[in-house]
């Protein structure tokens, strides 16, 4: 359903009403903005030395700040990329195991998945970094972050994959089985490839979640973007300005990723006719890129 069926096209009177109230709200909004600006000015937040190191290429610290931020962004992206790749592999294995498992030990897998879904990511990361070394596993900080993120996201991805496979029409499995394929072949040759295609948008939006979650690396002193912002603030004493910049960076990167997800989804749904099962399209819960299992911070 498109939203336009919710209301009639506005007539001249309601158009005028909308325009007037919009203008009124706009003026109100501007007034609040000015008030906020004045308050910030009073706290000296517009002082040049708070902004110049971030935005004025001529400032002596400009290059240092951006080198640090550049490194940090690379660190953030590296951790996110590794975590997504590992989660994808482990998540798929978990999903396959859960689909293929006999009743006798399926409960074990389900319990494992539910357990890991219930623990905050920040604790997973903390856990990986504090407990693994006590067990004699010595790794660079990056890997503790990746392990923590993977532990959480692989079970989320396992659920996405399972939903993807379950959303395929029954006929696919039946046709493959009637050709005499073994169960492993049915999965790996017929079901998973189709499921993955449908899942791609959901997976990309999970990447957004992982990217944001790398900011929890601050808890184990991994030099990702938010923590580096902290180090810059210790030196420049301008938290509001630096965090504003970090927010803009994250919003831009993640927004680009979300757009990519939508683009990929459009491309994919052009390629095939939407498969209809029981009156519903089988393009996955991913018809809205944000819904499945996301919301991790």
């Amino acid at each position, binding site marked *: 359903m498109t939203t336009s069926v919710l209301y009639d096209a506005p007539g001249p009177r309601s158009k005028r009403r909308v325009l007037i109230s919009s203008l009124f709200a706009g003026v109100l909004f501007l007034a609040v903005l000015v008030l906020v600006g004045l308050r910030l000015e009073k706290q000296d937040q517009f002082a040049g030395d708070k902004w110049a190191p971030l935005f004025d290429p001529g400032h002596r610290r400009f290059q240092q700040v951006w080198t640090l931020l550049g490194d940090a962004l690379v660190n953030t992206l590296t951790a996110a990329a590794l975590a997504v790749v590992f989660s994808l592999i482990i998540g798929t294995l978990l999903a396959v195991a859960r689909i293929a498992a006999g009743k006798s030990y399926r409960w074990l897998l389900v319990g494992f998945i539910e357990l890991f879904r219930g623990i905050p990511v920040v604790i997973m990361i903390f856990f990986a970094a504090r407990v693994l070394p006590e067990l004699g596993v010595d790794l660079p900080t990056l890997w503790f972050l990746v392990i923590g993120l993977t532990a959480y996201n692989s079970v989320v991805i396992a659920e996405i994959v399972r939903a993807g496979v379950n959303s395929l029409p029954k006929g696919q499995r039946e046709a493959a089985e009637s050709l005499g394929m073994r169960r492993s072949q049915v999965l790996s040759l017929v079901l998973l490839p189709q499921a993955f295609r449908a899942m791609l948008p959901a997976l990309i939006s999970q990447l957004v979640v992982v990217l944001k979650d790398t900011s929890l690396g601050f808890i184990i*002193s991994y030099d990702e973007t938010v923590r580096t912002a902290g180090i810059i603030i*210790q030196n*420049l*004493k301008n*938290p509001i300005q630096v965090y504003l910049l970090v927010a803009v960076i994250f919003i831009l990167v993640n927004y680009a990723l979300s757009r990519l997800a939508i683009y990929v989804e459009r491309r994919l749904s052009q390629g095939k006719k939407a498969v209809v099962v029981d009156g519903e399209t089988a393009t996955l819960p991913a018809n809205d890129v944000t819904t499945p299992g996301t919301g991790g911070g």
Partner: protein
Amino acid sequence: MRLRGLMVGAVTAALALSMAACGESNDAGTANPPVNTQANFEAGTTMAKLKDAGTVTIGTKVDQPLFGLKELDGTYTGFDVEIAKLIAAKLGIPADKIKWEETPSKVREEVIEQGKVDFVVATYTINDKRKERISFAGPYYEAGQDLMVKSDDSAITGPEALKAANAKVCSVTGSTPAEKIKQYVDPANLVLFDVYSKCADALRTGQVQAVTTDNVILLGLIADSNSAFKLVNKPFTKEPYGIGVKKGDVKFCEFINQTLKDAAADGSYAKAWKDTAGKVAPDAPALPTLAACS
């Protein structure tokens, strides 16, 4: 295919960025202590091992102005850092061969136990609980927990006045000062953040009325405040800062203590203070009486 092109572009950009980072030069702020090139140590000791390796990994803090602070250019500054450089120099290791490792309060014992660092100089208060897991050399400085308030605040004259003023007090999560202040304020009036600079922001905007931690850390915040804050100057605890080493490494501990004594005698201890914390608290402290190593 277009996607692949995009990814190649992204990777190239990332490489360019990281290479730009490598190319940056590293200039030290203060003159480094003279390196003891003739150092000679009994075989099998930690000192001999480090000297042969030619490098040492030292744990310190990165967010403690005046004591251990990571600068934007990647160098470390502060009194802790200077003390660590003195010890490294005595081992025959120049300052540029030191590998710094960030050790926030919560990981200090673990990184020592696991051998991730050779020693820790990080505003590290000596206490019995910690001695169960590691050994301390020093103390090289004795701080005391104090309060910082706004310059125009005359109501808060010491920890006892906090309750009467119904003051909100700020400190850092999981730190010793945060635990100790609990006997003076209601838990509801205790505000905790991850770094002290956030406490300073909260004090400035009037969200809290006092910040508590070791006096030297507060001095660093006061120096940055354009005299908006002041120290109450009624220290109510003793915080002897020690240098954490692996438990039972008596020889290394004694070596560090000897280094501290020598540094106090030849003036390099006072110089380390003057170059760092001395900018805010000009009177160089005397080296406290060193504890016996165990």
